[in-house]
C-alpha cells in the first residue's frame, strides 16, 4: 500500500472541497482499500465520506425510489420499499458478495467498483485500464470470465456489479453533486464503455460526489427479479446474470426492462429483447424468441465463447421465472 492521507468529513461542502483538491472518496472501502493493498489504486488522499447524510431511502414524488449513496447494500436489500417495489434490486444485492461485505459496502461505492479482471488486479501484468497504453493481457490471455459485449481493442473487462444490472434494466439515474452544483445523469450514461480510454469508467467530473441513485416509477403491477449464474452458489461474481422487470396488463406485456450482467464491459441493457416482448402475450415461445436476441453483437474471446449461449439461456430462464409462463 502506498502512503496516503486520511480525512474524515462531516458535510458535503467539506467533502467537495477535499474532492476538488484531488482526494478520493472513501465509503465502505470494500473495493478501494482492496485495490490499494494490491497497489492497483494509489491515492494520495482519502476523504472518508461515511459520515455524510446520504443514507436514506425515500419514495419520490412520482412514486419512484431514491436510494442514498451511503445506504449500505444490506440496508437497501432489506428496505421494505425496495423489496415491494423492485424485488430485482433486492435480489441482485442479496446475490452479491457476502453478508459481511454487504454490511460495509454502499450503493454509491457499488456502482463505482472496478473490474475483477485478474490482469487489472495484478500490477505486473499489462492493462490499459490500470496503466493506459500498456496493452491488454486479457484479450489474448485467460479470459473465461471476461466480456463478450461492449469490448474494445483496449479492454475486455466486465463490470462486476449485480445491482448495477438491475439499475440499468430499470433505467435508473444517478444524482451527482459537484463544485458547480447538482446534476442528474442517466445510469446508461454514467458507466462508460472502454473504447480507447478504458481507464475512464464513469462520467464523473473532477471532484463530483454521488449522492443517490434514483429508480423511476414504473407502471404497476410490476414483476421483477434477478438471476445470477456462477460456478459456486455464493460469494462469486456472475458468469452471466439477468435482471428482468415486466408490466403485464390485459394479458399483454406493456413494459419490459431487461439487462444482463457478467457479459458486458458495462451492465448490458437489452433493448432488442425488450422490443421483442412489448405488446406480446407471455408464452414459453416468446421467452425463447426474445432471449435469442440477447447476445446480438457479441464478440466472444477464446475462453468465453460459452457465454454467448449461456447468456441467452439465462435471459430466457429469467423471463420465464418473472413472466410466469412455461
Amino acid at each position, binding site marked *: *500500500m*502506498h*502512503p496516503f492521507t486520511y480525512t474524515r468529513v462531516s458535510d458535503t461542502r467539506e467533502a467537495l472541497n477535499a474532492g476538488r483538491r484531488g482526494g478520493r472518496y472513501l465509503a465502505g472501502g470494500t473495493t478501494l482499500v482492496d485495490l490499494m493493498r494490491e*497497489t492497483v489504486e494509489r491515492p494520495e488522499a482519502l476523504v472518508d465520506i461515511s459520515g455524510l447524510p446520504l443514507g436514506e431511502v425515500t419514495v419520490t414524488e412520482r412514486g419512484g425510489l431514491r436510494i442514498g449513496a451511503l445506504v449500505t447494500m444490506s440496508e437497501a436489500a432489506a428496505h421494505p420499499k425496495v423489496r415491494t417495489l423492485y424485488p430485482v434490486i433486492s435480489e441482485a444485492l442479496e446475490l452479491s458478495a457476502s453478508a459481511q461485505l454487504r454490511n460495509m459496502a454502499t450503493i454509491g461505492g457499488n456502482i463505482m467498483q472496478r473490474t*475483477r479482471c*485478474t*490482469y487489472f*488486479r*495484478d*500490477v*505486473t*501484468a499489462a492493462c490499459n485500464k490500470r496503466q493506459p497504453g500498456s496493452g491488454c*493481457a486479457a484479450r*489474448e*490471455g*485467460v479470459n473465461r*470470465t471476461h466480456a463478450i459485449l461492449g469490448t474494445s481493442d483496449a479492454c475486455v473487462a466486465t463490470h462486476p456489479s449485480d445491482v448495477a444490472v438491475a439499475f440499468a434494466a430499470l433505467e435508473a439515474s444517478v444524482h451527482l453533486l459537484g463544485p458547480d452544483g447538482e446534476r442528474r445523469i442517466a445510469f446508461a450514461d454514467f458507466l462508460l464503455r472502454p473504447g480507447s480510454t478504458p481507464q475512464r469508467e464513469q462520467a464523473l467530473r473532477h471532484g463530483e460526489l454521488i449522492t443517490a441513485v434514483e429508480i423511476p416509477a414504473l407502471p404497476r403491477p410490476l414483476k421483477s427479479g434477478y438471476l445470477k*449464474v456462477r*460456478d*459456486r*452458489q*455464493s*460469494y*462469486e*461474481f456472475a*458468469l452471466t446474470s439477468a435482471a428482468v422487470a415486466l408490466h403485464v396488463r390485459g394479458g399483454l406485456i406493456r413494459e419490459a426492462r431487461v439487462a444482463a450482467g457478467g457479459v458486458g464491459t458495462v451492465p448490458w441493457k437489452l433493448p432488442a429483447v425488450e422490443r421483442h416482448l412489448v405488446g406480446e402475450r407471455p408464452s414459453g415461445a416468446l421467452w425463447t424468441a426474445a432471449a435469442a436476441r440477447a447476445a446480438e453483437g457479441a464478440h466472444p474471446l477464446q475462453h468465453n465463447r*460459452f457465454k454467448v*449461449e*449461456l447468456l441467452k*439461456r*439465462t435471459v430466457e*430462464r429469467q423471463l420465464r421465472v418473472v413472466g410466469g409462463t412455461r
Partner: protein
Amino acid sequence: MSPQPRSAVGAPLSRVDGRLKVTGRALYAAEHEAKGVLHAVIVDSSVGRGRVTSIDADAAEAQPGVLRVIHHGNAPKLPYRDNPGSNNPPGGRRLRVFQDDKVLFHGQPVAVVVATTLEAAQHGASLVKVRYDAEKPSTDMAAATPDQPTEYARGDADAALRAAAVRLDLTYRMARNHHNPMEPHATVARWDGDRLTVWDKTQWVVGTQTELSTVFGLPLASVRVISPFVGGGFGSGLRCWPHTVVAALAARETGRPVKLVLGRRQQYFGTGFRPAYEYRLRLGSDRRGRLAAAVHEMDAETSSYETFDEAIMLAGQMFYSTPHVGQAYRKVPLDVNTPIWMRGPGFANASFAIESAMDELAHELGVDPIELRLRNEPAEDESNGLPWSTRRLRECYTVGAREFGWDRRDARPRSTRDGELLIGLGMAAAVYDPGRMPARARVRLGADGTAVVEAAASDMGPGTYTSQTQVAADALGLAMRAVDFRLGDSLYPQTPPHGGSMTMASVGTATLDACDKVRRQAVTLAVEDGESPLYGADAEDVVVRGGRLHVRGNPARGETYRSLLARNGLARLEADGSYAGPPEPARHSYFSYGAVFTEVAVDATLGLVRVRRMLGVYDCGRIVSPKLADSQALGGMVGGIGQALLEHTVTDHRDGRIVNANLADYLVPVNADIPDLRAIYLEGEDTRADPLGVKGVGEIVQVGVAAALANAVFHATGRRVRELPITAEALL
C-alpha cells in the same frame, strides 16, 4: 491395545484445544511475538523464466522504516548442504534463494525488503525495481516434453488388451489444485548467536529443522522449530519452503528477529500444489466385466529443478483384480515451482480416472456399478501376493447402498427429474495407502497425578492434541483433563511428517508405548511397596482409572498415583515410548478403503451442478476420536467437491503467471455449495495394522469424491465429463 479399560478412546469428545481456538488464544505462526521483531516482504519475480539483470532498491531503501533490501547481489552464500532427511524430492536440486540471478518460475523470490513495520516493508517491496532478461517459460504440460517414465508391468497388458472382448480407451484430465489453508504460511525467525529459533507454519517441525540446519550449515541442535498450531495445511506444510529460509536469512542479516507472512497471492507460488494430470486409461474386460488388462499412462507436472513424485501408480496395481497391468508415470518438467502432496495425494487423482472408467465400463455392459466392482474384488494384493490386513470394501458397498438408497436408482442416464433439474446418483470406491513410520513420544507423570506427554508431531486441524490425549488418558488411566499433550516443537521426541494419514498410527503408538511404560512403572512400584494397599497383587491384575490404581474387579483395593509417588518421595515417573514402524518385510497389505455415494441435481439449461447429498462409508480401522473423524470426513468431502466442481489453478502460458492466485478467483466451495454430508466408519479395528488398530482417516476421505460426482453427473445428464473441474461450459 493395553489391558487398560478404554473410556476416552472411541468416545465422541470435543477438541481439547477448542476453547483456546475459539477464544483466540491458540497462537499461530505469525502471532508469535519476538522482541524487536522486524517485518519482511518478499519481492516476487514478474517473469516466468530468465535472469535478473539489475535490482534497484534505492527508492525502497529511502522509505522511512525500510532497513534492508536483500537479493542475490548482496546476500551471503549459503551452504545449502544436501538434506536427505526432509521432504525435499530426491531428484533435482532445491531452489536456493538469492544465490544466483536465475529465475526458474513466475513468482520466485528475487528480493526481500526488511522494515520496522509491515506497512513499510510492503510499500518498500512495491518500490523495488527489478529488471530481467526474460525468456518464454514452458508451463503448458500438453506442449512440453516428459521425463523418462517410471514403469510397472505384470503379465502382458498390451496383448491382453488386444484380446479383450470389451475395450475402453479413456483420457482424463485433472486441473492443478492449491491447498489454500485459511492460515497463510508464515515464519518468525530469531537468532541468538549462532542458534536459530523459528516459529513456523509447518506440518513437520523436524523436517523444517533439518532443512534450516543444512541450508545454513548449522548443527541440527542449533535449530529449533516451534509450531504449536497450524491453521490448515492439507499438505502445503509438509516441506520447508524458500520463504522460511528468507525469514531466517533476513533475521541473520539484520541481527534482529524477523516476521515474514506470505500474502495470499504468494501462497500460489511460494508453496507447492497438487500437480495437474493427464491420465490415459485403457481397460479390457470380458463380457461380464471381469478385468483382463489395464494400461495406465499418467503425465504430471513437476518443476524444472526438482522431480516431484507421488503415489499415483499404486491404486492401479492393487485395487481391482487384473491379471495384466501396464503403467507408465511420466513427470513433465515445467518452469513452475515444485508441487507437493495434497490431501489424498496420488490416490485422489488415480481414483478419478479409475473410478470414472469403472462407471463407464458398468454403463457399457449394463451392469450395476457396485456389482461390477464386486466382480473385480481381488482375494489378495496382486501386486505383491500379500494378504490384506483388512479389506472391508464389500461392507462399505453394502452399508453405503443401504443407507443411501442405491436400489432406488434407475440405472438409465437422464431418467430422473425434479422439475427442471436432472437428478443423478453416482458412486465410487476409494482406497488410500496410509503411512506408518517410526515415531517417538515422552511422558512425565507428576506427583500431582497429572501427566505431560510430548511428541514433535503437529496438529494441522485433524485433532492430534485430542486424539493423542485420548490414547494417553486411557493408557495412563487418567481423566482427559489430567493429561497435557504437547506438540509442535523440534525439542520434543521426533516424529514423522504430519501427513499421509500416518500420525494416529505412528505417533499414537509411540504415545501408547510411553504411557504403558509409565503405568507399568507405577504398578510395579505399588505391588512391590509394602505400604501400598496393592502390595503383593499380581501386576497384571492392576488397572488404573481416574488416576487411581486398583485390582481389577476390586476397586476398593488401591491407591492413587499421587499417594504412591508421595509416599515413595518421587517427583515424577518418566518414560520414552516409540513405534518402530511396520514390520519388515511386510506380512500384510495395508490400505484404508471407502465407498462414496452422491446425488446431484443438474440444471442442464445453465450447466450447473449442485450436490444434494453425499455419503461416505469407510474402513479405517479403529476410530479413536469419532467427532474428529467425522469432521475429517466432512472436510475431505468438501475438498473433493472442490476438486470435482470448482478448483483449478489457471496459468497464463505466455509468461507463466498464475492468473487466479486469490480466493475470489480460485474457487473453493462455500457453505452454500455443501449439502447434507454424512460419514459412516465401519466398526472394528485392524489388529494387523499397528497396536492401536487404526488406519488413519485424513486422506481416504477425499479419495473417490470427484469420481462419484462425475459419475452422478453422467447419470443425471448422460454426459460424461472427463476433465476436472466440471464447469458450466462442459455441460451446456
